[in-house]
């Protein structure tokens, strides 16, 4: 580089790096030629400054030195910072306003340590993004993670409520039910976080908020770290930390389980299980092996609950419950027997409410993700079917072991096996998942599921083998029908269902046809590794850990490409994702491919046929779904699931009486059809709003159901009440198309039409972006546009809906919400098209 070039190179660097430049010096020394070049560099410097200004709109934040927080600069990116609401670990939390999404958010600003490198920032942001993928009502929703200047900002859901710490301070130790419920819910949330690959590391009373509407929410992930990140120094509050973490080991999901144990101990007693005035004292107390007994402080607690607390607080990580979910199950089981008044009622209510009704297969499955907490309307009690059979999840006699996934999946395998017998009426797996980890008697279950017979089982892993016991009782007459115990090797897990099924057949004096026998044989001869992966996938799937379930199913079919059932559930999982994730075409395509493989391998299996029917209905092929479903009904007349799905198909096609009738027959046949069972939505389309609401077993935690309750109430013109239901639905799940439409309606009820139109417009854009093909969901957008008086929007989306397969003519013809567009000629022509397809459908199928 020559002497002339060097100063220019330095200037270029300064321009590129945004370093302040004193132009007077080079200009005073420059030749005429150089001066021309300098002028151009000044122009480029202005270009750079302009762009930098727009990249870093929070110059006041970025330039603040030390640990100052942006109290002078009221903005962070697009957020308007409103007030400081607290200091968390390593950062400050503000309430802020997001003008784009028009909502309050919580903003946590973490200042990069002075020695922070790119890896630090990347780690914090990456963690934020991982957490953003965790969707659980018990986990604060993370919207965004971004670095501006020395600050990394995490944008989160803004929660109204108070922390458990505040409650402890105000009221002292909690009632047992409250403490157990809160910690069990914290554990469910932790479980979701762990599945997302993050360890919380700071579970404590001040990091759990009970919101004003009763949600228990885990907050403050400021110290969370990805699994396997052992290099970080211990963070979190020492009194809550597991002894191994205090000693410097990496935090793990099991150290979070320990912290949850400390939280429980503290809520029950007001004190910490192991205490010390300094870190050294605390470590010494752990070294002495202090083993707290919660009953020393609170003697009225049951021994079983005390044992659960003790296990969670075990100094050896491998003696603690293996997962947070296991701790939650153990807590619920331990609390149940001694508080018939509170907890038991709650569980019984939950059992009665896994309600489903409104959507078809996929939506039904989706709802299983939220266990109900209360019934808002008394459900009509259907009669018990003495011949019907329920299989309970097996009880793991060694709960901390790695075999916990077998609890549900063995029962599920047995249900599948028994369902292959056309003569037997077996409750679906989806209806029994909720009993996993609960201490229920066969009589209670028979009562709740309206069945006469119940099969229960236990197992314990011993070395390479599994010891299984099962029994079947006639719950109506209180007679033991059979009981047996046997041992199988882990290599032969598939034999468990077969062996039990053969005993059931014998006890019931039934026979097995050669065809049924062949199907059984195929089930048993699976590759053992593929079969185990499948069982793990089933457990995850039913626990709504669908992504992990998908991974297991994919591995299973990779090992054994002819494993039809694994393909079937792989397809079902994608179908559910399609509905949950705004009905994306990608998920539908994946679903269809997997289901086609499943059906090619085993055309007789019901699972893929029902899922396929659902995919067909939601992708404009309802006419193909009907023969498929009727075929299932012919072979298996007792399939309430197929009948329910038919009701869904008829609804799309506008055969409302037929839809109501099929839906009602399905619930009469199996009150827990598709895991819930409920009153058909077609009632709403017929204008029978109150009848729909009266028959609805509402699950207060299901966003989908809350939305449809809101809609029925809206039709009844009880607007403020409808707005509350829509808002609740939206607060439960903001990622669903339905809840966003509900939000728009609620905003409109509140009087802000512009904002409502804006929300709706964004929803429509997203539906285009994701190629939403669920035509009934699209219809909800069209309806809302019509209510807002946006004729263009209403017609635009209505066209997509009707052409996309929602030709529910009688409803379209009378829907009061479409009043504003009824006289437009284009509406008439769309209506006419719906009528033609509706009538062709009726002629073809009735």
């Amino acid at each position, binding site marked *: 580089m020559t002497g002339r070039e060097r100063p220019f190179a330095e200037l270029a*660097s300064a321009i590129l790096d945004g370093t302040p430049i004193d132009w007077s010096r080079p200009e005073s020394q420059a030749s005429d030629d150089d001066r021309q070049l300098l002028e151009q560099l000044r122009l480029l410097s202005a270009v750079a400054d302009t762009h930098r200004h727009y990249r870093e709109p929070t110059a006041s934040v970025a330039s603040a030195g030390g640990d100052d927080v942006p109290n002078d600069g009221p903005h962070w990116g697009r957020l308007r910072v409103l007030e400081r609401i607290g200091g968390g670990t390593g950062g400050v939390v503000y309430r802020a306003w997001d003008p784009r999404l028009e909502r309050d958010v919580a903003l946590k600003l973490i200042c990069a340590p002075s020695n922070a490198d790119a890896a630090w920032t990347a780690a914090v942001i990456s963690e934020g993004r991982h957490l953003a993928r965790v969707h659980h009502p018990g986990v604060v929703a993370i919207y965004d993670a971004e670095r501006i200047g020395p600050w990394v900002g995490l944008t989160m859901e803004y929660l109204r409520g108070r922390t458990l710490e505040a409650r402890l301070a105000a009221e002292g130790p909690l009632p047992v039910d409250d403490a157990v419920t809160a910690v069990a819910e914290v554990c469910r949330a932790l479980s979701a976080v762990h599945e997302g690959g993050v360890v919380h590391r700071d579970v404590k009373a001040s990091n759990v908020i009970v919101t004003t509407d009763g949600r228990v929410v885990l907050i403050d992930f400021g110290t969370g770290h990805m699994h396997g990140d052992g290099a970080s120094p211990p963070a979190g509050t020492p009194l809550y930390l597991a002894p191994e973490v205090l000693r410097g080991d990496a935090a793990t999901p099991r150290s979070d389980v320990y912290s949850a144990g400390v939280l429980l101990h503290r809520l029950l007693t007001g004190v910490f299980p192991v205490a010390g005035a300094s870190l050294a004292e605390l470590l010494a107390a752990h070294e002495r092996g202090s083993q707290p007994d919660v009953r020393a402080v609170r003697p009225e607690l049951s021994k079983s609950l005390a044992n659960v607390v003790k296990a969670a607080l075990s100094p050896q990580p491998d003696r603690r419950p293996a997962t947070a979910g296991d701790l939650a199950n153990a807590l619920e089981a331990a609390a149940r027997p001694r508080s018939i008044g509170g907890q038991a009622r709650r569980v019984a209510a939950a059992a009665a409410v896994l309600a489903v009704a409104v959507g078809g297969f996929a939506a039904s499955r989706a709802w299983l993700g939220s266990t109900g907490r209360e019934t808002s309307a008394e459900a009509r009690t259907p009669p018990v079917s003495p011949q019907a059979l329920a299989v309970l999840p097996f009880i793991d006699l060694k709960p901390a072991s790695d075999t916990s996934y077998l609890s549900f999946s063995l029962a599920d395998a047995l249900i599948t096996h028994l369902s292959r017998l056309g003569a037997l009426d077996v409750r679906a797996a989806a209806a029994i998942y909720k009993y996993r980890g609960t201490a229920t008697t066969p009589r209670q279950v028979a009562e709740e599921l309206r069945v006469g017979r119940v099969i229960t089982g236990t197992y314990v892993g011993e070395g390479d083998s599994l010891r299984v016991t099962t029994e079947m009782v006639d719950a109506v007459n209180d007679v033991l029908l059979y009981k047996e115990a046997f041992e199988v090797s882990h290599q032969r897990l598939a034999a468990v269902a077969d062996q039990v099924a053969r005993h059931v057949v014998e006890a019931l004096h039934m026979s097995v046809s050669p065809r049924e026998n062949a199907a059984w044989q195929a089930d048993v001869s699976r590759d053992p590794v593929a079969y185990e992966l499948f069982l793990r996938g089933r457990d995850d799937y039913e626990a709504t850990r669908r992504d992990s379930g998908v991974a297991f199913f994919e591995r299973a079919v990779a090992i054994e490409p002819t494993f039809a059932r694994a393909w079937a559930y792989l397809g079902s999982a994608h179908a559910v994702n399609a509905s949950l994730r705004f009905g994306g075409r990608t998920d539908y395509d994946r679903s269809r491919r997997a289901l086609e493989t499943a059906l090619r391998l085993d055309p007789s299996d019901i699972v893929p046929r029902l899922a396929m029917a659902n995919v067909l209905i939601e992708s404009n092929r309802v006419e193909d779904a009907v023969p498929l479903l009727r075929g299932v009904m012919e072979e298996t007349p007792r399939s309430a699931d197929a009948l329910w799905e038919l009701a869904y198909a008829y609804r799309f096609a506008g055969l409302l009486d037929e839809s109501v009738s099929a839906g009602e027959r399905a619930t009469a046949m199996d009150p827990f059809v598709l895991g819930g069972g409920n009153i058909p939505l077609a009632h709403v389309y017929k204008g029978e709003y109150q009848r729909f609401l009266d028959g609805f077993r509402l699950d207060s935690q299901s966003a989908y159901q809350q939305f449809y309750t809101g809609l029925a109430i809206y039709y009844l013109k009880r607007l403020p009440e409808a707005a509350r239901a829509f808002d609740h639905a939206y607060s439960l799940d903001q990622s669903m198309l339905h809840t966003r439409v509900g939000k728009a309606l609620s905003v409109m009820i509140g009087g802000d039409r512009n904002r409502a139109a804006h929300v709706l417009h964004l929803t429509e854009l997203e539906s285009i972006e994701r190629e939403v093909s669920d035509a009934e969901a699209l219809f909800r957008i069209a309806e809302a546009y019509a209510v807002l008086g946006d004729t263009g929007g209403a017609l635009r989306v209505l066209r997509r809906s009707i052409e996309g397969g929602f030709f529910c003519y009688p409803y379209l013809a009378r829907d009061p919400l479409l009043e504003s567009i009824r006289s437009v000629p284009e509406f008439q022509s769309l209506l006419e098209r719906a009528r033609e397809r509706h009538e062709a459908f009726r002629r073809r199928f009735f």
Partner: protein
Amino acid sequence: MTLDTTWQLLARARAGDLQALERLFARHLPPLQRWARGRLPKWARQMTDTDDLVQDALAQTFRRLDHVEAKGVGALGGYLRQAVLNRIRDELRRSGRTPPSVDLGTVDLAGGQSPLEQAIGREGVERYERALQQLSPGDREAIVGRLELGYSYEELAEALGKPSAEAARKAAQRALLKLAEELRR
């Protein structure tokens, strides 16, 4: 920490790897959104969904990945920016806010000055754009990446296919001087 190159990510996204697609978004969306803010006149920036439009454009582009080919360094960056501008142009036309005759490809949006125009004048912007077009694609990408999008030198190295941040810094420096020379012509 090893960085997958954008082209590796693209290849994986094309094969259906959702994680790769997410990482592509994470990498390209925020800088493009910020860039669009600096390139649009105020009234257009006030359209509340500008950020969404950028996201939308990116999603569509990634979906059409089969048609995007690696034409050398910087091809993708330019392609993405063009896609964003096209999308914004479509949207503005659709909402009837700008006459369809205006050529938005040169970022000359009618009806208001962009921040860049306010800073260096319309004539300055035109000269800058013209000079930029005279550079080689690699130099152009270095300028746009560092000066406009604010890439770190690590990111720039990745975008330019340079072995190190230091090499990227040198490349950007050289490109800036070449651009100044072009501007003087």
